[in-house]
């Protein structure tokens, strides 16, 4: 009995000494990790801790350590703010629109591209449709401004020449058009790039399935709906779950660039732009942090719920 415990103790000591020796032996590897640990600690972890200022009356002069704690005051202020429901509505509507239209669009594009047998045509369309992903939102907003403007916008020129309208429409200054413009520019920018994974999934489908279906006289449409779509369903589900987790990220850059005008605030203001405006521009740090934290809590809840549902149904469904 005592023999064993002595052995364990010796081994423990050996292990501790072994750890120091092993650490010393791999000092180069550890040195490769340290800068990254520092950077991530400073720029990710300290801000996470700093979120606590949502429960303070943070003042720049007192700093984080000396500012008084005020509990949920800023959250209550946010929930009672006159613009709260407008912001919530915009966040939810814009997120939902982007999900409902932006999520299936690349799948449909991938399905259509898969039917094209002329490789040259397919490659041209793919190359063109991927490109906007690599442009900044600033450039995309510039394109939108140029195409939609009243004085020389191509869309107004087109509609006028088709006699659909008599007067140029100021698309970018009209609240009714804002959501449409926002969703269209998003689809325009990302449809091609997001279709890549679905195209890859389609490429992995066993061709004999199609041959058998063709023998049985299935039309192309039938083949799409009974072979292609079910085959790529696992990929679709994974990306849908990720999209649900991202639901509240109604977008930031696009809204900031296209909808920053006060005329559009009624339809363009979402939690993120509100945090930016109140926090950075008006310097109400605690209040803005509370609003941001509120969003983060809902987002994490959504992500957890989506993950849970995925784990419960993911394997059994397919």
């Amino acid at each position, binding site marked *: 009995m005592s023999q064993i415990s002595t052995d364990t103790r010796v081994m423990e000591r050996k292990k501790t000494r072994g750890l120091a020796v092993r650490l010393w032996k*791999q000092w180069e*590897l*550890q040195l*490769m*990790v340290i800068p*990254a*640990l520092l950077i*991530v600690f400073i*720029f*990710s*972890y300290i*801000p996470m801790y*700093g*979120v606590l200022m949502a429960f303070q009356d943070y003042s720049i002069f007192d700093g984080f350590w000396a500012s008084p704690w005020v509990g949920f005051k800023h959250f209550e202020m946010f929930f009672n703010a006159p613009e709260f429901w407008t912001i919530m509505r915009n966040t939810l509507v814009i997120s939902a629109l982007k999900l409902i239209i932006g999520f299936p669009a690349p799948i449909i*594009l991938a399905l259509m591209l898969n*039917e*094209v047998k002329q490789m040259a045509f397919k490659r*041209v*369309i793919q190359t*063109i*449709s991927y490109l*906007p992903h*690599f*442009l*900044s939102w*600033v*450039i995309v*907003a*510039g*394109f939108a*401004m*140029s*195409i939609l403007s*009243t*004085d*020389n916008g*191509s869309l107004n*020129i087109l509609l006028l020449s088709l006699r659909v309208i008599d007067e140029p429409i*100021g698309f970018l200054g009209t609240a009714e058009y804002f959501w449409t413009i926002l969703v269209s520019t998003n689809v*325009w920018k990302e449809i091609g790039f997001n279709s890549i994974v679905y195209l*890859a999934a389609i490429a992995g489908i066993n061709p004999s399935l199609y041959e058998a279906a063709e023998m049985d006289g299935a*039309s*192309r*449409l039938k083949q799409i709906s009974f072979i292609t779509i079910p085959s790529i369903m696992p990929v679709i589900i*994974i990306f849908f779950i990720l999209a649900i987790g991202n639901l509240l990220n109604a977008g*930031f*850059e696009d809204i*900031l*660039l*296209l909808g*920053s*005008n006060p*005329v559009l605030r009624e339809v363009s203001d979402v939690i*993120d732009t509100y*945090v930016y405006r109140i*926090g950075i521009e008006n310097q109400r740090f605690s209040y*803005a942090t509370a609003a*941001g934290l509120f969003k*983060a809590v809902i987002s994490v809840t959504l*992500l957890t719920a989506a993950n849970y549902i995925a784990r419960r149904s993911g394997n059994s469904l397919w």
Partner: protein
Amino acid sequence: MKHRSLNDRLMMFIIYTLLILLGFSTFYPFWNALVVSFNEGMDTALGGITFWPREWTFENYSIVFQDSRILNGFYITIMRTVIGTLFSVLFTAMLAFAMSKQDLIGRKYYMVFFIVTMYFSGGLIPSFLVTRSLGLMDSFWVFIIPTLISVWNMIIFRTFFRGLPDGLLESAQIDGCGHFKTFFRIVLPLSGPVIATLSLFTAIFHWNEWFLPSIYINNENLLPIQSMLQQILNSNIMSEQMSQLDSAAQARMSRMRSVTTKSLSMATMMVATLPIIAVYPFVQKYFVKGVLVGSLKE
């Protein structure tokens, strides 16, 4: 010859039509901006410029290339892209190399430490206050340091490094290479494709990013080109939106707005987009692979 039903042919017709429409609507804004940038500014203001310039001119571009502020913006953007990409890819790859070693002490804890940041963040305001308290306001390094480590890229690098043959790395160690030497002399030279892909993504991020400078940079000499463009376009969009308000505001805005603002901003946009369009065809095959590697890890 395969017999195709009427239904199938109708469907193919619809698909081709939709794809051509998509291709056109994606291509047209580029083309139109290019055309406007080559058209004389006053003439553009008359309207009707669509597929071809009416009054050819290089003046817009010559003004862009003579404007010292815009040139400085390009200089800042290029510096930021080169230095930011170099450092970020190097430090992230180095981290990934260490993390790819099974015997790295603390590996599991490190991994959790990094992964957590992919799901949680302090949000805009606390990050802003931290960055500001570090004295990075109005500093070039605000472009480089906070984005030095990309956890996502680290995971892709690590997957690649694990695929390298063990024997190769072992024989390097036997020949007396330390980890640093192995990394720089053997691993990096063998990682061409993955370095190319991730450098491309990092470079495009740095080239396009405009939001950080908009909150951290007040000094005009440090503004990258995208942020300058944002300011120009924003005033344009604002005036466009304002013009809907009332005729008095409209008159005021149009007096303030130079008639060639649009031509100039289109020319600047074209120059700011050109590098991306120029490298795009060469790297297309890499990024498709890169995206797929990335999505496999989800």
